[in-house]
């Protein structure tokens, strides 16, 4: 059984969860994991006080978190490899500055999912984040490479100053997406009004997107068949940057919308 941490009860303060890194915990037994400390508000609290620890960090490098982790910030932040699966919601900064591995969240994520930390110009540099539900503001901010995908909606400002990489929100990307986008791809399963710095280019069935959607299915996300068959409107932007980024808006199954 994969190393599994089940939340005992909501923590008294916000917890910085970045140390719960599947790769970092590889080889630790349940006792050692339980003894690790996490910052909870102003204090350091042992993992064992917050979670029931079971299983072991097997060689597969998979870590499973179970519970409503809304007050846990930075879940999977800085991950470089391995798989972190969360059954429940997570707080802000989940997967921030990730460089590799897979972060699967079966629930909702808070703000700045997969984003750059304050002041840092580059956020995610690799890896895949898949969230079954919604995410807060500025998902994928500063992203340089990698994939952030939501079954639900992204909050406003997704892909802020994205350098490259992909943010997909099947439930719809929020407003103000892609300010300062250089080479990134932002994908919305629902119509939104692009920023004025974007301009409509064409309707198409982008083969790369199709592959990414199939990849999402493999990672456990429900992807409606019409997204695979359908037509997407490509908007190019941010035109005040390189005009090499794109915003792909779902345009219906036969582009008639």
């Amino acid at each position, binding site marked *: 059984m994969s190393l599994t941490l089940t939340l005992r009860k909501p923590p008294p303060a916000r917890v910085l969860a970045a140390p719960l890194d599947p790769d970092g915990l590889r080889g630790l037994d349940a006792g050692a994991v339980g003894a690790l400390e996490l910052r909870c508000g102003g204090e350091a609290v042992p993992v064992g006080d917050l979670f029931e620890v079971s299983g072991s960090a097997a060689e597969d490098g998979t870590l499973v978190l179970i519970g409503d982790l809304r007050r846990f910030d930075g879940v999977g932040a800085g991950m470089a490899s391995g798989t972190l699966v969360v059954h429940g919601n997570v707080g802000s900064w989940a997967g921030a500055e990730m460089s590799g591995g897979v972060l699967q969240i079966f629930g909702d994520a808070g703000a700045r999912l997969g984003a750059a930390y304050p002041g840092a110009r580059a956020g995610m540099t690799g890896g895949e984040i898949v969230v079954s539900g919604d995410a807060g503001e500025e998902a994928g901010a500063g992203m340089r490479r*990698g994939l952030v995908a939501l079954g639900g909606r992204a909050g406003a400002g997704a892909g802020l100053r994205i350098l490259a990489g992909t943010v997909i929100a099947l439930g719809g990307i929020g407003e103000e997406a892609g300010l300062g986008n250089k080479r990134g791809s932002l994908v919305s399963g629902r119509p939104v009004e692009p920023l004025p710095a974007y301009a409509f280019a*064409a309707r198409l*069935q*982008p*083969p*790369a997107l199709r*592959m990414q959607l199939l*990849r999402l299915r493999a990672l456990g996300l429900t992807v409606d068949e019409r997204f695979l068959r359908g037509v997407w409107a490509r908007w190019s932007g941010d035109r005040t940057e390189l005009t090499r980024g794109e915003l792909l808006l779902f345009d219906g199954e036969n582009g008639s919308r």
Partner: protein
Amino acid sequence: MTGYRLGDAEVVDTFAEAFPMRYSRVVITAATEAWALEAARSMTGFATSIIGCKCEAGIEMEVRGEDTPDGRPGIAVLLFAMDREGVGKRILERVGQTVMTCPTTACFDGLPGAERSVPLGRSLRYFGDGFQASKVIAGERFWRIPVMEGEFLVCESVGVGRGVGGGNLVIGARDEATALAAAMAAADAMRGEGIALPFPGGIVRSGSKVGALSSKSLPASTNHQMAPTLRVQVKDSLVPDGVAALFEIVIDGVSEDAVREAMRRGLHAAAGAGAKHVTAANFGGKLGEFHFPLSELRDPP
């Protein structure tokens, strides 16, 4: 010379002589299977023999939508050349000229995880004139090259494996129609995973020998020993009595096993479809690393 009989067919106790080659597999997908097939045919056209075409290629198989990287119907193509560099050059030329140009296609590596690879998208991307973009999907990099239709998606590189080229069967019968029917049955049976039959329809009627009797500069010339019309004219004819036409099936495969098993399938299919005489071509066993004695193919597949 003692052989064995398989149905009506006399199987000569000889062997096919084959060579180590390098190969790649690409999976071409398209909006419809028909367009994928168009691209694959075009890519494998004029890729019959290494001597004349610098590579040998054939359609390996159809790949169903659920099994292709982008979920669309696909065709797997195998391309063989003598070394990795040759594979790289030919793949690049052919994908650039025949796949990228073909409506709705995308092109993927059919040998993921191979130890060695050659650049494909990494080189083809320059056709994008700076407008190309890349995406890393599930750890693999792909290039998106803007084209008049939309985007051509092509993998960064393709794996290169060690394969076997030059396996063959030569099938003869009492008349041309029967011989062709037997050869076609054999080719049909031989096609499948790991196998490319580089000649048109998989079948060669102008089998060749190395060099020429009449000239020192010709690299290859007709296999006069197998030409029925010369049966009397040449001293070393190998065309037996009652055989009016012969066809060769050349087989390139991803492994010795794949070639052998394809030959076994072909031999038995030919025997069941009117072949009277089945033999194989070799160069006396001195040139090729791999020998496939027909005697080992007696057991049915």
